[in-house]
């Protein structure tokens, strides 16, 4: 009975969670992740991140979220009620006890002895917020953090309403960290004639970073700058993008830590199947550089080598690998000017969505009817040869091929394929 389990678990969390907030985390983790396996550790850290972004105690936030994930609306109600129940009953008892004994010498002495400790606890908690043990949830990220901190501190001592201060600081945060990224959309200006455009872009983006310092490399600012850099070069000519990626890695000056950090970012943003920025053409130069660089440990080259082999399968402009379709024919035999390869599985939800988009698309219907387009759906599980011929990181995977079966779009979304087809046929 899931409701009862939820109730008991969160009753325990409420009952044994002394000290509030983060000291309850290990308890929550034990119950929810280890004992009952309701959610994964990754999902729990998501909840913590969301809790930090929403008001309210983390115990309640996690109760509502986990309850909903596990057993819907009533699950969230039951878990939240359970986590509140111990507080309600025990605090009522303690408050009665306190009110009755108030004024007695015993209560006076105990309270006097405990007050400084509680002050110390609050001070320690705020110090821990300023200097956290792990850098992930850091609050003080740059000089602006300290300015905001100082301003809020002074304002608070001068009795400015804390609610107004919280709202103002949120607005200040948007002004400092969000607006500049929108306003300063970088326009590539290539002025120096002596260096190539690739070098110019890479150097302009990276000259502000001292890549020899390890705290620079892991920072959020570094990651953001790298993403901006990728965004900038993916709109350039392919050869410039290719050169700029290599130049960005060359600027690491054989610093293996910096190279590995860049490679990790590359894998996360350019290779990860769930990344909207995934782009094999930009990942390939990174892989090549890692393999060629003398600064990279030979052991760390094994993975780039195998990834490069996969990434080079069916590159844009190359003829796609031939295979036997589910209908028993050769893929290369398709005669239409365009071909869509659609790798899917029967029980994946995103495939259902993609199939629905295909059947609803007017241009696809028109083109297939007119013999301009062939769609080759392939159940990847039934076709063992596919795995060696195509890089199916995630299903569904779609390719758009031209008449000679050259790859026009690789591992693209159905929307971008429809967009491309619409563009091509409007031109004619």
């Amino acid at each position, binding site marked *: 009975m899931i409701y009862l389990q939820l109730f008991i678990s969160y009753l325990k969390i409420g009952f044994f969670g002394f*000290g*509030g*907030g983060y*000291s309850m985390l290990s308890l929550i983790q034990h119950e929810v992740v280890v004992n009952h396996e309701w959610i994964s550790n990754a999902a729990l850290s998501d909840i913590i*991140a969301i809790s*930090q*972004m*929403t008001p309210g*105690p983390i115990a*309640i*936030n996690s109760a509502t*979220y986990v309850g*909903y994930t596990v057993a819907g609306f009533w699950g*969230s109600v039951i878990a939240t009620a359970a*986590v*509140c129940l111990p*507080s*309600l009953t025990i*605090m009522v008892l303690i*408050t009665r006890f*306190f009110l009755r004994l108030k004024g*007695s*010498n015993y209560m*006076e*002495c*105990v*309270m006097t*002895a*405990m*007050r400084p*400790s*509680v*002050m*110390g*606890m*609050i*001070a*320690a908690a*705020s*110090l821990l*917020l*300023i200097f956290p043990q792990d850098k992930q949830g850091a609050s*003080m990220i740059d000089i602006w*953090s300290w300015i905001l*901190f100082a*301003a809020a501190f002074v304002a*608070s001592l001068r*009795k400015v309403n*804390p*609610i107004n201060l*919280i709202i103002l*600081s*949120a*607005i200040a*945060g*948007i*002004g*400092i*960290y*969000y607006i500049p990224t929108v306003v300063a959309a970088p326009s590539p200006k290539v002025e120096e004639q002596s260096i190539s455009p690739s070098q110019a872009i890479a150097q302009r983006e990276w000259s502000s970073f001292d890549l020899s310092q390890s705290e620079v490399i892991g920072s959020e600012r570094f990651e953001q700058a790298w993403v901006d850099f990728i965004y900038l070069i993916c709109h350039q000519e392919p050869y410039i993008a290719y050169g700029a990626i290599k130049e960005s890695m060359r600027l690491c000056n054989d610093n293996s830590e910096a190279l590995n950090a860049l490679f990790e970012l590359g894998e996360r943003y350019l290779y990860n199947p769930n990344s909207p920025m995934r782009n094999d053409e930009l990942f390939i130069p990174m892989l090549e550089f890692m393999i060629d660089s003398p600064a990279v440990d030979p052991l760390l080259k094994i993975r780039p080598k195998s990834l490069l082999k996969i990434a080079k399968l069916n590159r844009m402009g190359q003829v796609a690998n031939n295979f036997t379709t589910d209908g028993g024919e050769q893929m290369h035999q398709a005669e239409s000017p365009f071909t869509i390869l659609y790798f899917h599985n029967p029980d994946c939800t995103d495939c259902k969505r993609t199939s629905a988009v295909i059947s609803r698309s007017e241009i696809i219907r028109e083109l297939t009817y007119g013999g301009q387009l062939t769609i080759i759906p392939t159940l990847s599980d039934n076709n063992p040869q596919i795995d060696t011929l195509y890089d199916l990181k995630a299903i569904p995977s779609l390719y758009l091929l031209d008449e000679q079966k050259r790859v026009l779009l690789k591992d693209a979304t159905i929307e971008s394929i429809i967009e491309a087809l619409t563009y091509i046929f409007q031109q004619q």
Partner: protein
Amino acid sequence: MEQVRLRDLFSTFLKIGVFTFGGGFAMIPLIEREIIQRRAWLPAKEFLDLLTIAQSAPGPIALNTAVFIGYKSRGYRGALSALLGVVVPSFTILLIVALYFNHIRDNAIVDAAFKGMRPAVIALIMAPIISLSRPMKPLHIVVAVVAAAALWFFAFSPIYLLLASAVVGVVWAYFTTKKGKL
């Protein structure tokens, strides 16, 4: 003293619940403002007692605080009203997030707003320490500094710290209280 209305308890804690970003301690400045200065439901000198009790009981500090003030003002029904006030915002917001905004933390605007709010919240938590320490004797301030250091440097569990100070208080009371009188 005029009786506190349940409606006011609920709405005041609702307001506090909406703006408590960053855990139970972040409530301290809001409680000071709303409960002590605006509503005067609790005398300023009892503020630290409230925090002490809320820390010593199990459960989230935010809930304990609400129950204490609610019960002190209006008994059981007061406790329940204040508790609901704190819970409703968290519950509603997390439910909406679970339903529609699973990707809220990837949103650049929300992220930027939080980068601005976090330092301010820390400052808001720290400022009351100054005002609370004003009426304290030097010895107490030394104890507070030692306690903070023990927690911060040695990751001492807060429960033991509270227990130890309670025991010190009981022993002290034993020697200062006349026999037969509690």
